């Protein structure tokens, strides 16, 4: 096809991968911030030699809930004082697509309404034009701070309550996670009508798995030379293959069908544990802290919901032709090093 068609350039049309090297004892805790600022997670995979990963995960990760509620129920003062203020409540509307439907979420503090133009024009609440789609004016985001100004005597509360009841008054299905603020362990969510859902856990042992040695240049420097970038790409590629239990890293693939080779491989007996459900960022952080304390190398992959309205640091997120917002981390505790890979889709304000 001819390349002379002067179509407008798009700023956000490519996925991006951010690679960060952080020191485990550093005060910045970059590796921790990456985990704790990503509220909507639906899958975690840990690859480790340890046989106790499943038990560690079971200690912190537990059930979540399916519940059908009206949006005005979330701003009810009794709900806020009983649930939002006491612990961390994460909620995401289920079976709704961020690029086609109105999506609602709570990230622990704010009620986020990501709505289309038609809904916003009748909603009557002040929001801002969404960054995505790139053409402004087709999607809007309204944020309601549940910890502030939700006093029934105040006009702001009355207006929000009236507009939600008038426009968005249909009950919405939510995935709700209710977690302890400090540890991320699940807390009982005793709303009437809530159905408890147990996360799905898969465990797989791979004997003699080909595991790459984390190159010294990745651990010791941050200088992004071509070699550094190449090694980082190779490590991220290996982590991706390992989480999908590829034959190429299990050492059982045929040379005729796979040209992939693990860089500087070492043969180790590894265990791959995957948990699927609504996962608390704090719980993931607690699990990782415990694994770091055990001083064995391990790899973590966490996937965010494709249809979540926000990704890291409340950055706006949308679905282009993919809605990836996942991260992978390689921990080398004996060298106090963590390599973090953040993969953002094209329509993610974090990038």
């Amino acid at each position, binding site marked *: *096809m*001819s390349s002379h*068609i*002067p*179509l*407008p350039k*798009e700023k*956000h*049309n490519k996925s991006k991968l951010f690679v960060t090297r952080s020191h485990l004892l550093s005060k910045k805790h970059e590796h921790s911030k990456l985990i704790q600022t990503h509220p909507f997670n639906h899958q975690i995979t840990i690859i480790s030699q340890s046989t106790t990963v499943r038990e560690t995960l079971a200690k912190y990760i537990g059930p979540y809930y399916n519940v059908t509620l009206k949006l005005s129920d979330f701003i009810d003062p009794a709900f806020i004082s009983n649930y939002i203020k006491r612990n961390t409540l994460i909620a995401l509307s289920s*079976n*709704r*697509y961020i*690029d*086609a*439907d109105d999506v609602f979420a709570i990230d622990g503090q704010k009620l986020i309404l990501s709505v*289309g*133009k*038609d*809904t916003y024009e009748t909603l009557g609440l002040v929001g801002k034009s969404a960054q995505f*789609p*790139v*053409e402004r004016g*087709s999607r809007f985001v309204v944020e309601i701070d549940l910890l502030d100004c939700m006093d029934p005597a105040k006009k702001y509360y009355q207006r929000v309550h009236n507009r939600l009841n008038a426009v968005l008054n*249909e009950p919405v299905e939510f995935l709700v996670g209710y977690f302890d603020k400090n540890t991320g362990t699940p807390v009982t969510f005793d709303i009437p009508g809530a159905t408890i859902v147990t996360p799905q856990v898969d465990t797989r042992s791979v004997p003699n798995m080909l595991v790459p040695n984390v190159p010294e240049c990745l651990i010791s420097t941050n200088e992004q030379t071509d070699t550094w970038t190449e090694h980082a790409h190779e490590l991220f590629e290996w982590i991706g293959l390992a989480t999908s239990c590829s034959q190429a890293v299990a050492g059982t693939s045929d040379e005729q069908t796979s040209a992939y080779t693990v860089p500087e491989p070492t043969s180790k007996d590894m265990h791959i544990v995957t948990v699927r459900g609504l996962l608390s960022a704090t719980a993931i952080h607690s699990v990782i802290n415990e694994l770091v304390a055990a001083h064995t190398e391990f790899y973590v992959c966490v996937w965010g919901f494709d249809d979540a309205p926000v990704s890291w640091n409340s950055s706006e997120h949308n679905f*282009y*032709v993919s809605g990836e917002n996942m991260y992978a981390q390689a921990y080398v505790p004996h060298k106090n090093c963590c390599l973090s890979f953040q993969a953002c889709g*094209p329509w993610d304000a974090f990038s």
Partner: protein
Amino acid sequence: MFYDLNIPLPEAAGKAGGHVSSQEWAQIAQTVEQARVLGYSVVALNLTLQGKLAPEHLSVWNTTPEFKNAQLSWDRATGARVGGATRSVGRGKIRVLRRLTAVIGDATQGHSLASVDGAYDIVAVQPTNDAMLLAACNGTWDAVDIVALDMGQRWNFVAKQKVVTQALALGVSLEIMYQPALAGEKTRQQWVSNAAAVVRATRGRSVIWTSAARRALDLRAPYDIANLGEVLQLNGDLSKRALAANARAALMHAFTRSSTLRAVIAPKHSAADEPEGLAKKARMAS
């Protein structure tokens, strides 16, 4: 929301005295249901007619069956339009609109479109020569929302950017239907050439993707269309826009043209005018 503004009625329905049989309606209903499953929220059933519009062309809609999980923009009993242009129909449902496409070979045929006003949700014209394309694009006929071009056939005119730009300035959209891209080899070749010409002329703006699907198997999901757009150098964003925002804009253009006074005043439809309200009125009257 994703829109598909072209699910065609059988060709025979566009002729004087034409009608749609119950089998054909069943096939259309299946197509509409498949569109809902694929993620479309709004579809338009398209009546294509040759020549001048006559009142009997509206009788085609008298035999509309009930569509499952769908809300029609017209009352099945009376044929009158109901509701607003982009009214939400709720989760799991699909909104069905009425569209008219007039194949225009003569300027006088275009003027008869004014009599359509209010009966159809969207009005499109399919010009057959340079002069009609110019007339469709430069506002000669007020009642035009979409310029449809036959994507599977060789055109005897050129879609020039100067002409098309006039349409874009008036808020008229250009349609790319993807059904010919799924047909035979020669039709596909012609489709690529024609669609590329439309993209070149419009620079990717104000283009709407439609299916022109005569059966459910001819429909494709919105993300498949976004991938198909890459062939035409329409990146994912522009393709999704063509399926969503641009289609909505075409719908709003039609609503503004037919149901508002100078785009300032629009009648507010009361609850009595909703399909359920109209049925209740009919019951109370009988």
